[in-house]
């Protein structure tokens, strides 16, 4: 048997119970409400189109051709950052599968002990120590996990997001660990673009009013210029303000969520345990840190198909059975479920697990050593090697 490497996408996003929409085979992940995002696109593209159509020819001739070139580069950068922010997975945490949910429940019950009937059980909190600071991890009843530090549940997208900053309707997505730097660069570059267009609109108007060159013809209509100036003026205040706010947050290594809740405001001697106490280091970590992988849009290399027969040793049949069992545990994983459905499914899976009736499938089917919920495609792809 020859070893054949099979590469395929694990389609986790198909089973995500949150309120997200996916496109392009899972590469694009956005929130459901996209109306404001389309408005953002319209404003940016519309204003820039007017600028390129009406101002740039004049300015290129009378001032410098570098002006539209730089504007175009800036515009492309803004669009790239916007699309990157909007389309990427912000760092959604996958919900706990039934076994994990049960495991956590049992740990909680053991920690709480016996609660007398009629009394409310204590809140589900886990304390961890981070850099000599006690941080409380809260339990998420929807995702059935203890949220990692800095994670929060977005009610709009119905997902827990790691390093949750905020849900931004203007980009149509949550802003979290994976796309925060793109969001920041988007606001920064949009500020620059707005200031740039605003400045050159004013220059254009001034040059039209007071022509300095004999090449200038009579005064032409500046109606569109006025429109652009208006859009830029109102955008300036909000976007530049937002950029300034996020620059402040980055220098302190805080998220908008933490800032709003006042988590590290200094009350009760609570300090931010994530800050390096150095502005440069904080900025570098947020902007130049590693690019975290998505738990959903991830391409894996599967094991070589022939390897199972080579690698198994003495108890070959047992190991083969272990490998084959990956597919049989699939029924334990719910596809789409509400939090209410999860409880009966946990009980059902608990009863189901000790007594599955599956036996060794024929040797031709060699499922991967991946988790149970990979697609049915896997086994079909594997069959091709025999």
């Amino acid at each position, binding site marked *: 048997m020859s070893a054949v490497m099979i590469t395929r996408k694990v389609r986790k996003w198909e089973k995500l119970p949150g309120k997200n929409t996916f496109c392009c085979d899972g590469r694009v992940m956005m929130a459901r409400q996209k109306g404001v995002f389309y408005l953002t696109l319209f404003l940016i593209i519309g204003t820039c189109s007017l600028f390129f159509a009406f101002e740039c020819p004049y300015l290129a001739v009378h001032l410098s051709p570098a002006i539209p070139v730089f504007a175009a580069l800036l515009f492309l950068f803004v669009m790239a950052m916007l699309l990157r922010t909007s389309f990427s997975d912000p760092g959604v945490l996958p919900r706990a599968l039934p076994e994990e949910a049960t495991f956590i429940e049992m740990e909680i019950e053991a920690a709480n002990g016996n609660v007398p009937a009629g009394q409310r059980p204590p809140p589900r909190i886990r304390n961890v120590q981070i850099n000599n600071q006690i941080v409380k991890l809260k339990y998420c009843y929807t995702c059935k996990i203890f949220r990692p530090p800095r994670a929060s549940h977005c009610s709009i997208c119905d997902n827990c997001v790691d390093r949750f900053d905020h849900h931004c309707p203007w980009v149509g997505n949550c802003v979290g660990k994976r796309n925060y730097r793109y969001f920041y660069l988007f606001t920064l570059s949009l500020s620059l673009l707005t200031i740039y267009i605003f400045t050159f609109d004013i220059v254009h108007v001034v040059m039209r009013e007071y022509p300095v060159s004999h090449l200038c013809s009579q005064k032409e209509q500046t109606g569109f210029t006025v429109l652009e100036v208006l859009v830029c003026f109102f955008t300036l205040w909000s976007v530049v303000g937002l950029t300034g706010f996020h620059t402040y947050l980055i220098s302190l290594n805080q998220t908008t969520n933490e800032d709003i809740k006042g988590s590290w405001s200094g009350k009760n001697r609570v300090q931010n345990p994530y800050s390096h106490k150095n502005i440069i280091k904080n900025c570098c970590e947020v902007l130049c840190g590693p690019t975290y992988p998505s738990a959903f849009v991830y391409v894996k290399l599967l094991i070589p198909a022939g390897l199972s027969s080579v690698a198994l040793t003495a108890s070959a049949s047992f190991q083969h059975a272990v490998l084959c069992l990956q597919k049989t545990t699939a029924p334990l994983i719910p596809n789409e479920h509400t939090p209410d459905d999860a409880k009966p499914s946990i009980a059902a899976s*608990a009863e189901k697990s000790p007594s599955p009736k599956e036996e060794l499938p024929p040797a031709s089917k060699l499922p991967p050593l991946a*988790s149970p919920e990979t697609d049915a495609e896997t086994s079909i792809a594997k069959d091709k090697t025999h």
Partner: protein
Amino acid sequence: MRHSASLANKVFIQRDYSEGTTCKFQTKFPSELESRIERTLFEDTVKTLNNYYAEAEKIGGQSYLEGCLACATAYLIFLCMETRYEKVLKKIAKYIQEQNEKIYAPRGLLITDPIERGMRVIEISIYEDRGSSGSSSGSSSVSGSTAR
């Protein structure tokens, strides 16, 4: 001869947040695995995984260079280039597969790559060989495992 294995239980190795939000898993040996695998083997696996993740998340000269270069190209370079993290994840996947084949599968255990669980836990599935007679370890249902 036909044998079959059934899933008896699952153990979840939690994250260790003592050094911050960098990806690190606890090396505490779970009681459910006591009869299944030697402590040192388990600890070695988790420590190696922790080292891999530390390597992926290291913030230093190379990550700055990668970040600045990517920013200069409006992150379009990632359409053709693999990020450092992705390279390390591939190494991790290979390592886990190797560990499963050499160490864990012969003992009726299976490690799931943490990326599949959003880097929250390392899931270790405990299988029971139904083909062998008289096996009683882990034969109870999921609800039977004792919490700590």
